[in-house]
């Protein structure tokens, strides 16, 4: 065999057998893609467990957010207006990531860099917004009551995913600048985009559960 697969999924090419290299790459790409989609599936199960626990807790108390006698004083609802604003920031980053990948496929490096930068900035903006919300939420902290515990656990877990996603995107961006990916072989960017979309979609559910329901 005239080719070997690198750690990041590229193929060292000795220039003798491009067709065989392509078959090897496509087969390994398909397997890695299936593995990555299954990984996202396990994350869906993780979030679903917490979400159904939240729904159970919510329905086990007559008033939500909890009031007396469950807690000493009636807890306020969360700030929907700010959450709507912060949600758009995150959804916007999902769209910019999608277009970053599209520009990569079409060999438009300048716009790829622009959209990657926008995605990372918006992701960091969302995390900043979440930190602001944590600092100003008057719901009794993460260990004060079931509402606070549910809110900080679920949104905190999501925030960790966003943080990991931002680190992932920065690593991918560095890799693109180092020449790891080509216009034909860019599985890492595909995985990063799918992960980022997944994080956005989880927030759709959390936004509805905590702010609109």
């Amino acid at each position, binding site marked *: 065999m005239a080719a070997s697969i690198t750690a990041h999924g590229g193929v060292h090419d000795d220039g003798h057998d491009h067709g065989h290299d392509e078959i090897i790459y496509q087969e390994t790409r398909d397997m890695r893609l299936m593995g990555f989609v299954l990984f996202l599936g396990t994350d869906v199960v993780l979030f679903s467990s917490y979400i159904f626990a939240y729904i159970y807790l919510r329905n086990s108390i007559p008033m939500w957010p909890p009031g007396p006698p469950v807690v000493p004083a009636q807890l306020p609802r969360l700030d929907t*207006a700010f959450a709507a604003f912060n*949600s*758009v920031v995150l959804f*916007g980053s*999902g769209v910019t990531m999608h277009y970053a990948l599209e520009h990569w496929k079409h060999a438009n490096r300048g716009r790829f860099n622009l959209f990657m930068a926008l995605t990372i900035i918006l992701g960091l903006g969302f995390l900043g917004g979440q930190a602001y919300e944590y600092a100003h939420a008057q719901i009794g902290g993460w260990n004060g009551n079931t509402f606070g515990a549910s809110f900080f656990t679920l949104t905190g877990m999501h925030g960790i995913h966003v943080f990991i996603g931002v680190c992932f995107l920065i690593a991918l961006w560095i890799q693109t600048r180092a020449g790891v990916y080509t216009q034909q072989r860019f599985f890492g960017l595909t995985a990063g985009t799918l992960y980022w979309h997944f994080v956005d*979609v989880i927030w*759709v559910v959390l936004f509805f559960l905590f702010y609109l*329901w």
Partner: protein
Amino acid sequence: MELANIEKIVAFVGALVVFFFACVGLRGEWHKTGLDDNVTKLLLGLMAFGCVLVVLACFGVLPHGGAA
């Protein structure tokens, strides 16, 4: 103008813009059939739905969407 109203206006306009570009992206993906393309279609569609939720929240249409 109250800060909450400014946030809602920005969120509303942003949601419309993001929804539009999500739909354009979804349209571009529509004819593709790979596993990653299909997952992207699903996730982009759900993200566009999230924008609809934000718009509804801005107008207070959902039960607690207008609560600050």
